[in-house]
């Protein structure tokens, strides 16, 4: 609840006069809305708005964002159900819809739409209805596709309201009805534009029963052929424009998609715009204009583009309009309906003045300026034919006259009221003037309306009416023409009213008395007119005025007048801008011209006020919320409020019979009526403004297209230039091509001649060749024949040769036979002779046989038998022999094979042997190496031993020498004893030895040494040998180091070899055997020899030993004395010792 209270406070603060506070509160609300998703705040806002119709709240509500739309719509729907709040709800809805919120597509789904439709169907309040219809019209283009489901509702509403206009149920004020008419008219356009087929069919079905609507049907029946549009992909403004395009109302139709040419023209001659519309200008518009949607004829473009030519075009007779459009606009419904009559209304000119497209074209600059300064625009006018000009002005004048009349009818009551309403800002005068303005304006208005009606009507009617109207208004119209810039009917509507206002302000009754006439006239007008009235483009004058800059600027002072007209007010923006910028209005002087003091006063006051306001705005922070449009809205509303206040205060003395006379409404009602009317006008204004915005959107888009088109055109031109250049090139090439062709043909001719020559040559040559070929063939056949013959001959030759050979063979055979036969003959002769001899012998034997006949036969038989036996024997023998032969042959074969096998085996054996040899050699080598090693070892050992011995001897020698000296003495004594003992035995020997001692002692020593060792080997036995060999060796070995070769070769084979042989590892081993085999011969032979020698030696030595021993025993004695050399002494000593021992041993 606190929040609720808070909101209430905030809401009240919204309307505070402090702008800053207002903005802050607005911001707070917006924040809340963005954060809060609940419906409460929106509901509160709506409630508050409906109560107070506060502008800031409206602003907030119209800018609601997506999630709140539903709440808003629901709330509005809720209020829509209540009759009391219906109107304000509708107004709110209108505000919302016109701003085109982002969620506008949701409108069709919202329950609000059906309830709106229901309201329109049911409600009886004209104000509500008018407002609702306008809202609906605004909404329709936003929901083109989804709105289809309500199509019949729309049509029903249309039907109901259109009939309303006619029937006037209840106590509906005429004044309201006008508004209703206007809105229904707009609805008709919208429906027809958007759903032509459906709508037309509806019209047909709906109006078929009513006679007075037959014309209606006729008007629309041709449209039934039109197809439905694909609205879905179009923007809202597109839909609006599309509707306008096919609109029956030429003013609306002519707006869209305008080509700048027409606009420029109209801009160029703004003051003459009315005339222009009736003259060629419209012609061009029809031909180019999208209203007729005819293709843009290129031929016309230059003419329309060049300003110089313009007058001519403009001055072309207006009749052209009637003839041309049907040709150009083939499909245009308005053409078909005969509605092509150029709108005499000036309205369709000004709107185009504001067209931005003019900038695109070159002429734009020149023509753009007049837009800003309409007062200076006249110059082109003189270019026109005076006749034309007059004609135009006249026609325009005639056209405008009826408008005023009719408009007065509708506008009068409110104007009247306004007249009495004082402005809350102390502008009583102005308010009065406003009233007077409207009053004075009425004829113009009526004229407009009439002209519109005329345009819809058939030509005859038009002519008649215009005549009629012209009569009424000539007085008014004529003086206006010379006024130049302000002679447009529009100005007559607004400005001209101002001067009149001065005198009319004073006498409201007078004006009132003036008014009834036109009103009556319009009311009195025939019934058939009324339906047309529904189609009257109520907005025409104002639409035109709003679009025209001149009009807009000039109209500012006469703002209220324009409000009277149900057109959307486009002035505010310009005015706001103008004041915002602080510029002094450039049209001030015009007012002075047009208006007397009052007007000037009004204008100056107003401007001051607005300047103040603008300054205030600027001073504060130039609040963007206060857009010029809104300012205008606010102004209107405030004006309305002021009015109502004033009215309530006033006693309304002037409300006399006049009032009730035509309105028929009581004064108390008047206030409400006026207020309502103001409201309605405001609604209409908003609606029209919305429409204009859509137009502006579309214009911008089209401008873009035009720019693009211009660029493309430029490019086209450039490409054309290029094309021309290329064509030139092509021509040059063509010329050269021709030249080349000529040359080529020449060359070909030459070539042809050459070719023919060559051909003939070829032919000749071919002929020759054929001849030659034939000849050669003949020759070849001959050759072949010859070859055949030769072959045959050869064959024959061969045959002959063979025959010869054969015969030779035969000959040799024959000769052989001959020789044979000769030999046979000889034999035969010999045999014959033998035969003869044998015959003789036979005879002799026969004789003998006869003699010894008996014995011989037996003998012969025996012999025969013997022979036979012998033969058989021989035969069997032969058989045996042959058999033996066979067997032996077989045997030979076998043996041969055996031999081969054996050979093979032998080879294998050899191989094997080789292998074995190799193996053996390997082993042997190992053994050999071992042997070698052993040899080395022994050598080393020997060396070592010798070394040791050497050392030993070195030590022992000194000792021995000493010992020997002592021993020698002893030995001498002993020897003497021995000698005495043994003298008997060895005395002769001793003597011999002693005798030969000197001579033999040296040669014997080696031999003796040998002998001693040999004797040991032979007789000493193996047991002693090994033992004794060690002491024995030293002498040998001592020789070794001096010369081992001598040692082995000459030295002692007898001693060393047995030792080595014996020392072989083992005689059983293979190596041992081998080694033995290898060494056998040598060793055996040596052994044998040695054996012999040894034995002999031993024998001799044995004998000698005795001598030796005795001798040696002596020698020391002999040698002791002299001591020739130490080595000798050594050896001798050694030998002696050994010998001594041995001898001693043997002897013992």
């Amino acid at each position, binding site marked *: 609840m606190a929040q609720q209270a808070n909101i209430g406070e905030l809401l009240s603060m919204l309307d505070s006069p402090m702008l800053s506070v207002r903005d802050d509160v607005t911001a707070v609300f917006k924040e809340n809305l963005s954060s809060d998703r609940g419906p409460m705040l929106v509901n509160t806002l709506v409630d508050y708005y409906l109560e107070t119709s506060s502008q800031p709240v409206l602003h907030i509500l119209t800018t609601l964002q997506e999630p709140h739309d539903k709440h808003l719509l629901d709330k509005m729907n809720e209020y829509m159900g209540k009759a009391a709040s219906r109107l304000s709800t509708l107004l709110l809805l209108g505000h919302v819809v016109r701003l085109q919120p982002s969620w506008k597509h949701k409108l069709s789904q919202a329950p609000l739409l059906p309830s709106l439709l229901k309201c329109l169907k049911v409600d009886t309040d004209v104000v509500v209805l008018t407002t609702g219809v306008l809202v609906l019209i605004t909404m329709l283009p936003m929901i083109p596709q989804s709105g289809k489901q309500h199509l019949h509702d729309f049509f029903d509403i249309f039907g109901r309201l259109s009939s309303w206009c006619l029937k006037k149920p209840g106590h509906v004020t005429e004044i309201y009805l006008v508004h209703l008419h206007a809105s229904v008219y707009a609805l008709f356009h919208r429906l027809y534009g958007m759903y032509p087929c459906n709508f037309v069919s509806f019209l047909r079905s709906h109006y078929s029963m009513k006679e007075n609507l037959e014309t209606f049907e006729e008007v629309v029946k041709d449209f039934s052929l039109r197809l439905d549009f694909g609205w879905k992909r179009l923007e809202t403004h597109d839909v609006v424009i599309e509707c306008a395009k096919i609109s029956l109302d030429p003013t609306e139709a002519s707006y869209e998609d305008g080509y700048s040419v027409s606009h420029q023209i109209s801009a160029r001659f703004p003051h003459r715009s009315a005339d222009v519309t009736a003259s060629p200008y419209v012609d061009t518009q029809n031909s180019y204009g999208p209203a007729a949607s005819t293709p843009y004829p290129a031929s016309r473009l230059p003419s329309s583009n060049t300003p110089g030519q313009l007058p001519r075009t403009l001055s072309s007779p207006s009749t052209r309009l009637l003839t041309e459009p049907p040709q150009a606009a083939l499909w245009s419904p308005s053409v078909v309906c005969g509605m092509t009559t150029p709108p005499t209304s000036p309205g369709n000119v000004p709107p185009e003045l504001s067209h931005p497209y003019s900038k695109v074209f070159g002429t734009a600059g020149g023509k753009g300026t007049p837009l800003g300064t309409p007062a200076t625009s006249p110059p082109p006018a003189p270019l026109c034919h005076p006749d034309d000009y007059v004609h135009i002005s006249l026609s325009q004048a005639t056209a405008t006259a009826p408008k005023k009349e009719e408009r007065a009818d509708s506008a009068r009551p409110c104007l009247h009221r306004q007249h009495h309403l004082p402005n809350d800002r102390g502008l009583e005068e102005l308010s009065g003037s406003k009233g007077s303005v409207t009053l004075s304006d009425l004829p113009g208005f009526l004229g407009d309306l009439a002209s519109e009606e005329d345009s819809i009507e058939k030509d005859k009617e038009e002519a008649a009416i215009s005549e009629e109207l012209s009569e009424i208004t000539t007085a008014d119209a004529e003086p206006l023409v010379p006024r130049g810039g302000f002679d447009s009917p529009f100005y007559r509507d607004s400005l001209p009213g101002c001067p009149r206002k001065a005198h009319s302000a004073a006498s409201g009754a007078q004006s009132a008395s003036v008014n009834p006439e036109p009103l009556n006239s319009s009311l009195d007008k025939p019934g058939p007119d009324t339906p047309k009235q529904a189609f009257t483009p109520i907005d025409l004058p104002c639409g035109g005025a709003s679009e025209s800059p001149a009009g807009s600027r000039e109209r500012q002072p006469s703002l209220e007048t324009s409000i009277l007209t149900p057109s959307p007010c486009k002035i505010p923006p310009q005015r706001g801008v103008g004041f915002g910028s602080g510029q002094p209005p450039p049209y001030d002087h015009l007012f002075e011209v047009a208006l007397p003091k009052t007007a000037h006063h009004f204008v100056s006051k107003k401007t001051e006020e607005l300047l103040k306001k603008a300054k205030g705005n600027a001073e504060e922070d130039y609040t963007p919320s206060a857009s010029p449009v809104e300012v205008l809205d606010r102004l209107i509303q405030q004006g309305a409020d002021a009015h109502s206040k004033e009215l309530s205060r006033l006693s309304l003395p002037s409300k006399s019979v006049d009032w009730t006379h035509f309105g028929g409404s009581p004064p108390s009602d008047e206030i409400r009526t006026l207020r309502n009317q103001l409201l309605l006008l405001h609604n209409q204004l908003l609606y029209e403004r919305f429409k204009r915005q859509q137009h502006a959107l579309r214009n911008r888009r089209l401008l873009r297209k035009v720019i693009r088109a211009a660029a493309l055109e430029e490019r086209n031109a450039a490409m054309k230039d290029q094309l021309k250049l290329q064509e030139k090139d092509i021509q040059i090439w063509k010329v050269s091509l021709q030249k080349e062709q000529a040359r080529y043909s020449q060359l070909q001719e030459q070539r042809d001649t050459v070719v023919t020559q060559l051909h003939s040559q070829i032919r000749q040559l071919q002929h020759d060749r054929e001849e030659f070929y034939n000849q050669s063939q003949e020759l070849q056949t001959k050759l072949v024949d010859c070859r055949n013959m030769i072959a045959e001959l050869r064959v024959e030759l061969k045959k002959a040769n063979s025959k010869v050979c054969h015969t030779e063979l035969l000959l040799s055979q024959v000769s052989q036979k001959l020789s044979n036969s000769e030999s046979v003959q000889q034999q035969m002769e010999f045999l014959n002779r033998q035969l003869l001899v044998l015959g003789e012998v036979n005879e002799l034997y026969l004789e003998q046989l006869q003699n010894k006949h008996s014995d011989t036969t037996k003998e012969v038989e025996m012999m025969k038998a013997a022979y036979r036996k012998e033969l058989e024997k021989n035969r069997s023998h032969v058989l045996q022999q042959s058999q033996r032969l066979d067997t032996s042959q077989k045997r030979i074969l076998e043996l041969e094979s055996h031999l081969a096998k054996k050979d093979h085996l032998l080879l294998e054996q050899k191989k094997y042997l080789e292998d074995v040899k*190799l*193996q053996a050699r*390997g082993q042997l*080598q190992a*053994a050999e190496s*071992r042997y*070698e*090693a052993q040899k*080395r070892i022994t050598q080393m050992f020997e060396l070592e031993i010798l070394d040791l011995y050497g050392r030993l001897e070195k030590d022992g020698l000194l000792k021995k020498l000493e010992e020997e000296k002592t021993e020698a003495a002893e030995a001498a004594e002993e020897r003497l004893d021995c000698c005495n003992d043994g003298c008997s035995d060895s005395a002769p020997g001793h003597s011999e030895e002693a005798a030969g001692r000197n001579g033999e002692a040296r040669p014997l020593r080696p031999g003796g040494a040998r002998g001693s060792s040999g004797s040991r080997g032979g007789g000493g036995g193996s047991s002693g040998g090994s033992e004794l060999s060690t002491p024995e060796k030293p002498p040998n070995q001592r020789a070794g180091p001096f010369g081992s070769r001598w040692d082995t070769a000459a030295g002692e084979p007898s001693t060393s070899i047995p030792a080595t042989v014996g020392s072989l590892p083992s005689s059983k081993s293979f190596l041992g055997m081998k080694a033995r085999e290898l060494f056998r011969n040598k060793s055996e032979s040596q052994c044998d020899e040695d054996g012999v020698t040894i034995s002999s030696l031993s024998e001799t030595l044995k004998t000698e030993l005795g001598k030796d021993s005795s001798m040696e025993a002596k020698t020391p004695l002999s040698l002791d004395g002299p001591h020739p050399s130490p080595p000798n002494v050594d050896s001798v000593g050694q030998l002696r010792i050994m010998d001594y021992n041995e001898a001693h041993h043997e002897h013992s």
Partner: protein
Amino acid sequence: MTEDSQRNFRSVYYEKVGFRGVEEKKSLEILLKDDRLDVEKLCTFSQRFPLPSMYRALVWKVLLVFCPFPPPWVFVGILPPHHESHAQVMTYRKEQYSDVLHALEVIRFISDATPQVEVYLHMHRLESGKLPRSPSFPLEPEDEVFLAIAKAMEEMVEDSVDCYWVTRCFVNQLNNKYRDSLPQLPKAFEQYLNLEDSRLLSHLKTCSAVSRLPYDLWFKRCFAGCLPESSLQRQLFSGAVWDKVVSGSCKILVFVAVEILLTFKIKVMALNSAEKITKFLENIPQDSSDAIVSKAIDLWHKHCGTPVHSA
């Protein structure tokens, strides 16, 4: 062909793809199964492929010719090609070894404390008749070589008898078979280094290190002692290199030397004095030895062509 047919048919592709040694062991086993070992084939094999260490001693024993005897005693390595006689011959070898060892012990030339390598040396000297009078006799340069090789060999061949024989024969081979070609190797080394990397050679020349490179270590000792002792790397390195030397190509030594220089090019280029270079090259880091060997073999194959089986 016989061993080819038994070999895995994929072996060709293995080699193409770059897997080495997948099929080699198998084919070597096939070769070793022959009753009479084909020495030539074994030679070619060990020239082409690295020998598996388990067969290395056997193959070497077959390939190494130890006896420099005149004609009747040609051929024959430590083991003859006949399997039959292997046992016999091996006993001979063993006996010979023990005999010689015994003899040396008898004359108290060696004792139990004598290092095995010196034992080998004394035995070798004894067998070649060059045993000095005393064990403390100063060593000849060739003895130093022997010792180095024996030391390396000891790591590869476990059995002392085998080791002795193999070492002896290896040294013999160096001294006899390669007597003429070994002095040529430094020249060949320069030539190939020039081909591979002339900048490096010129650097060495500017440092005047060319003549002072450890040629003795490389070519006389066959890189024995080039790597730190008793490392697996060294075993692999020497094994792979000596495979080629044993099977008859001493040129591999040149390529190993070249590859060592190429591998340590950056370091060598950084060193400016001949002493430093020599010092560095005498003790190269062991971690890249594998790569060096394989690259050296590639290099060798590249310059001298892959040895093709002559059979």
